[in-house]
Every structure is written in structure tokens, then in C-alpha cells.
């Protein structure tokens, strides 16, 4: 399948360099303009997030009817989502380091999930953002659980990957928290458990802290109402997990998002890196609050090109990126949120089945036609991107 190798070859090296320097210029332009507006924005978000948390926890504790209780859960979920996505994720990318504000400093920030910030900075900021969508190097591509391309050999258990997908979504913070364990490599004996002890210690400390907060401290504070608080906090965490995983999957697993091989990316220039980030990411459109609640990962393309520029700037930047893309005739992958999400589901479903040319062909063929007819009719048909 050379379907994935061609996109990188579309531009000549000179064009790539020009493309890269235009984006670098754009980056400099925005960096030079950072100031009060950005500081006010993030502080405002932090304040709203804290208010949301106060309201949520208060309602969960003291609400006397189910409606208010549900409201409390909604507010706490919002607070957790805002904290994780618009504050934590962005701050840890170093987007606000220029402010010299110790509470918004990338290297010391700790966020409201079981994932240890130190581990996140390593697996996400470094591995995922450097090797985006390179199969075998970007472990975020499918999280070593999902098969999302035919380049990954098919195994019978992939049949049920839709269940895995739902589990991964529901337990997302644990998946992310344990990501650094590299479970698949442990199993193959590529890394030893011993090397992972420092990580495990950090993970246990962080997750212990998280669990004791949501499932011990706050319930105990509520006294006899403890079970209610336990339930409320649990649901809020679940909602947060489902939402964040959905947003993140829409960033790299949509129909148009490309994958790459290690060889393609050797000796990569800056222009090629930008280009790969562009091809491997996808945006979705929506209103202001959808963007904020997704931590502006709705602008995944811009986020991957400029991970350390304050995220609320992405909407403005994206206009210019689109112009540049048009100039070089490069596809810019964006669509409505719902549509992008359906292509993700379609992809998960599609690759739960073996490739047409494998020894599972017969079985696969049958199931595919069955699936095509019955179960997955509501899904848009999955078509791998074709480049002439």
C-alpha cells in the first residue's frame, strides 16, 4: 500500500521549505503579539473553572432534589473538562510560560486527572507531538488498543475492538495515566518492568491522590451523604473521560487523517514536520463554547503545528493556515463535529475487520457484507483518502 507514502512526496523539497518558512513566519508574528489579551483570557478561564468546581461540588453535596444533583454533576464535569483541556493541557505545552507566572508554568503544573503531569509531558508533549501519526513511534495512534489502519496486522481480538473502544473512552484517564507503562512492549519483552518502577511509583502517588480526593475526602466531608457524593464524583469523572477521549479521537483518527512510516520521516526538515502535522490532524467546526470545552483541540491542525502558542489564538491562526494550504494545494481536513466523529466510528468499525487480501479474507468478506447491510448502515461509508 503506497497510499500513505505518497502524500509526503506531494511537495518538492523546495516547496516544503517555503511552506515551512511561511508557517515559521506566522508563528513569529503571533508570538510577538502575545500579551495582556492572552493573560486575561487564561486567567478568566481559570476563574470560571474554579467557580464551576465550587458550584458543582456544592450542589453535589447539598442538593436535595435529583435535578439540582444532576446540575451539580454537570457543573463538576464542566470544571474537570475545562481544567484538563483548556487549562492543563495547554499550560503543560508551555503556551503560557512567557507570562512568568508560577501557577501557569508548563514544567510544574499538575492537573486534575489520575495521569501524572510528568508522565504526560513525556508521552504527549514529546512522543506524540514529535512523532505524530508515525506508526510504531506514535503510541497515541490507536493507543496500542485500537487497530485503525491496515498497516497493523489483524488479530481475531480486533473483532471486538468496538468494545475496547468504548472501554478506552470510559476509562480514558486511566489509559492515559498508564500510557507510559507501554504495556504492549512489556508483553513482548521489549522493555522490562524494572525500568518502569519509577514511573509506577509516580503513577501510584498521583492516582492515589486523585482517588482519595474524589472518592474519600469529599465523600467524607459530606458525612451521611457520602454515597451520593461518591456517585456524583464518579459520574463527573466518567463524563470527563468520555468527552475528552471523543475530542482527542476526532483529532487524529478521522477519515482524512494520514499515517506515516518511520522511513518516510527520517532526516525530516522543519517544513516536512509541519506538513506531516497537517496531514495527520483534523479539525472540526462548532461554536465558541465547543471550542473552549475541547481546549481548542477542535483546531487540532493548528495545535499540532504550533503546540506552544496559546490555544485561544488558533481560530485566528487557522484562517491564515488555510490560505497557506490553498496556496500549496494541500488538503485541510475539517468538517462539522458530528461528521468527523462518525468517520472515527466508521474507522474503528472498518478496521475491526481483516484486510480484504488476508487469509481471513473469506470470513472478513462475509462479515463485511453483513455489516454493510445491517448494523453499520447508519455510518457514512469509510473511504480511505485517495490522492491522484
Amino acid at each position, binding site marked *: 500500500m503506497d497510499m500513505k507514502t505518497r502524500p509526503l512526496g506531494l511537495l518538492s523539497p523546495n516547496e516544503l521549505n517555503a511552506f515551512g518558512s511561511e508557517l515559521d513566519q506566522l508563528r513569529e508574528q503571533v508570538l510577538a503579539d502575545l500579551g495582556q489579551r492572552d493573560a486575561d483570557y487564561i486567567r478568566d478561564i481559570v476563574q470560571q473553572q474554579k467557580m464551576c468546581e465550587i458550584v458543582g461540588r456544592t450542589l453535589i453535596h447539598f442538593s436535595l432534589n435529583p435535578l439540582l444533583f444532576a446540575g451539580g454533576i454537570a457543573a463538576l464535569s464542566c470544571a474537570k473538562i475545562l481544567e484538563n483541556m483548556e487549562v492543563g493541557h495547554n499550560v503543560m505545552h508551555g503556551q503560557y510560560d512567557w507570562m512568568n507566572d508560577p501557577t501557569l508554568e508548563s514544567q510544574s503544573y499538575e492537573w486534575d486527572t489520575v495521569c501524572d503531569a510528568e508522565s504526560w509531558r513525556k508521552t504527549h508533549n514529546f512522543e506524540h*507531538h514529535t512523532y505524530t501519526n508515525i506508526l510504531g513511534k506514535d503510541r497515541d495512534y490507536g493507543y496500542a488498543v485500537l487497530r485503525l489502519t491496515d498497516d497493523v496486522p489483524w488479530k481475531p481480538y480486533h473483532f471486538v475492538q468496538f468494545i475496547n473502544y468504548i472501554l478506552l473512552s470510559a476509562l480514558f484517564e486511566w489509559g492515559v495515566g498508564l500510557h507510559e507503562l507501554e504495556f504492549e512492549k512489556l508483553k513482548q519483552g521489549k522493555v522490562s518492568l524494572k525500568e518502569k518502577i519509577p514511573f509506577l511509583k509516580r503513577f501510584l502517588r498521583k492516582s492515589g*491522590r486523585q482517588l482519595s480526593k474524589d472518592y474519600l475526602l469529599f465523600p467524607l466531608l459530606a458525612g451521611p451523604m457520602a454515597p451520593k457524593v461518591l456517585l456524583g464524583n464518579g459520574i463527573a469523572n466518567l463524563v470527563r473521560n468520555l468527552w475528552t477521549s471523543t475530542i482527542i479521537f476526532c483529532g487524529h483518527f478521522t477519515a482524512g487523517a494520514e499515517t506515516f512510516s518511520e522511513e518516510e520521516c527520517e532526516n525530516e526538515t522543519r517544513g516536512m514536520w509541519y506538513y506531516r502535522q497537517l496531514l495527520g490532524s483534523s479539525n472540526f467546526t462548532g461554536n465558541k463554547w465547543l471550542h473552549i470545552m475541547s481546549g481548542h483541540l477542535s483546531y487540532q491542525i493548528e495545535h499540532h503545528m504550533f503546540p506552544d502558542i496559546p490555544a485561544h489564538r488558533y481560530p485566528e491562526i487557522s484562517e491564515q493556515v488555510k490560505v497557506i494550504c490553498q496556496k500549496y494545494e494541500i488538503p485541510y481536513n475539517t468538517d462539522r463535529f458530528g461528521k468527523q466523529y462518525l468517520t472515527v466510528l466508521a474507522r474503528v468499525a472498518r478496521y475491526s475487520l481483516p484486510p480484504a487480501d488476508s487469509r481471513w479474507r473469506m470470513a472478513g468478506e462475509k462479515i463485511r457484507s453483513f455489516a454493510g447491510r445491517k448494523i453499520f448502515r447508519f455510518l457514512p461509508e469509510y473511504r480511505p483518502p485517495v490522492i491522484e
Partner: protein
Amino acid sequence: MTSEDTSRLMQFSPILRCMNVLFIQVNGSLNGVRQVFRQQLGGVQCFMDYVLCRIDPLLSLQRDYAQVVSIGEETRQAKTFILRPSFLWKGFLAGQHIQLETEINGVRYRRFYSISSAPTLFAERGLISITVKKIPGGRISNHLHKTLRVGDILAIGKAVGRFICDQLDSEQLYTKSCREESVPIAENSKEVLFIAAGSGVTPFKSMLETLYSEKPERKVTLILYANRADELIFNIWLSQLSEQWSNFRLITHCGEQISLDSLRSDCPDMAQRAVYLCGPVGFMDKTIRFARELDVPSDTIRQENFGNVSRPSALVDAAGINLMLVEAEVLFTKTGKKIKSPGGKTLLELAEQSGLHPKYGCRRGICHECTCQREGGDIFNTLTGALVPKEQNRIQACISVPVGDLVVSDW
């Protein structure tokens, strides 16, 4: 213990060892629980503090803030700000300074300012003062002059610094009680010589007030340098003090550079005195050289360095000089390691060459894993192709090439 006892003990040794391991394990997990509990408390405290600060920063339990109570003009370039620190602020010794934090266009800047009031003012009325001189082109000094109003609230730090006068009772007490390192205590009988230039007079005001009230029998001389007569900070207060206090001598020099001859004639017995020096770097270097020529033992000189007059910018933007290839020397203050570079090496490479193992990720400026704190020196950013702005102290080591001398504080 007989050999029989020992052998019996040996029998139990596997069990003992197991128990030992178990004990360590249990203790370890208890420690874990304790730690989790403490962290939890930490989280709650942070949250409380956030809420308190929203109500009024002066209520903060974790940071020190101060409110501006009044503003006075000393000279055309210098203003004195009287501040009331929040209730947790611990007090200070004459001669110490505080860090002051202010925000311009979303960026927080931190600068040090010596406290110019006496500790008694703080003890009696809870007030301190700082005196800020405008530096031409200086960002913060001008900003403070222009924007600070009565009632404003500033984030400040605890009083720090060892530029203190250890001839005072209060300070000897302090020395004994809470200072980790001991500063050589000058003989109590020694006479004192203060030498200052420009805004360097600020810590001396605090010391003089305290000396006058605690030890008026001590002989004190202040030599003060300024560019012009109307730039002499605290001029009126100082001349009044010299009239009231017979043991105090004030010598001012306006529009002159310090010289060996003037120093000799101002204070012929300099070698016998405890000498305190404060001012810009160039001035202090010169003074120390002269002092050495006058046989002043170096351990009797204390100095406070107020900052650098900027280096000639020729190196920085002269066309034709490839900044990548400027020789450099980096000091990592945490480990005390030092390394020389012929140029062109990134800070990350240099750190590794000198045997450190700093954290890093992509090594190409994407992930910020290699971020470290610079304390001083210039850096060339290989991504932007320009010098890193002076104000940016958190730098990415993998794309930073030091230009000239550099100090990095967290490795």
C-alpha cells in the same frame, strides 16, 4: 553474646529478614498514605488561597503581597513607595532587600529593591519603604514610576540578603537565632564606612537610621556619588542627620568619578574600618580595586551589587558576527559545574557534555521538556535565528546556544 546465641539467631534470620522487609514495606506504604494526605491538604490550601486572593490578595496565606500606602518624590528620578506588607510577611534587617513582582502586558517581571526604611518602622507601624530610581530605558523602574498609585497591591517576596550591618544588637540576635551560615562578625568597636553611588544609598538609609537609634556612639562615614547635585537621593534627610549626629560624617561627590585620591582623602583610615559598598557593577569594581591599593583587607568589605549596565550591543547585532560561533562559558549553579564552549553547541549538549542528565524530549524545540531557568547571559535561539529576549528566563535548552557567559540555575 555466645556463639550458641548467635547460631540460634541465625536460624531465625530468614524470618527476621522477612519481617524487616515487611516492616519497610508497611512503613513505605504508610509514608505513601501520609504523603497523599499532605498533598490533599496542599490542594485544599491552594484552593482556599485562590478564593482568598480573589477577595483580597492581602489575605493570601501562601504569597506575600503589599499595598502602596503613600508615594513620595526624592529627586526627579527617584520615588519612595511606602508599602504595607500583608500580615504573614516576616520582617527584615536593615540592609536587606525584597523581590517585587509586577505585570506588564501579561508578563510578570521580578526585580529586587532594597528596603530604605528602618526595621523599627515595620515593628511599630507595619510599614516598609523602597526607593526606586528610574534607569534610562529600564523597564520596571519606569513602569513603577509611571503606573504605581496609592492603594495598588504588589506581590513581594520575603526579605533576603546578607548585606547587613552586624554591629547592631538586633542583628546579632538574628545572626544567632536563625541564620544558617555565619557571616564573619566584625569587631564591635570598628568604625563604619559606607560607600554608595546613585540608588545604592537605599540600604544605607535603613542602616543609618538603625545605627543612629541603637549605636549613636559608633563613628560612621557615608561617601555618596551622584551624577548631579539634584540627583542625590535622601539629600535633605542625610544632611539633617549629619547635623544631629556628631559621629556621622557625610561626603558627597556630584558629577565626579570615584578615584584613588578622593577615596584616600575622604577616609584615610579606610583599612581600619568595616566597609560597605553598594551601587552599579562598574562603580563597585573600581572601588574595590582602589580599596585593595589602600591595603583594605578584602574580608572587611561587604558589597551589594545592584545590577549591570548593559554590555555594548556591538556583539549582539553587529552584522557579520555569527552568534552561533561566539565562545561561551556556562555555569550550572545547582551542581556548580562549569563548561566552556567554542560556540555552536546548544545548552542541552553542553549540559550533557559536562556530565549532567537533564530531562529532554524532541531535541528540536517542540515539547518544552528541556526547559530550564537562566539567571543571566545571552542566548541565541536556533529556531528563530535571533537572541532570546532578555525578559524570557524560561528557555528551551535544546534550541538555545549560549553567547558569551551564561548562568543556568536549575541544573
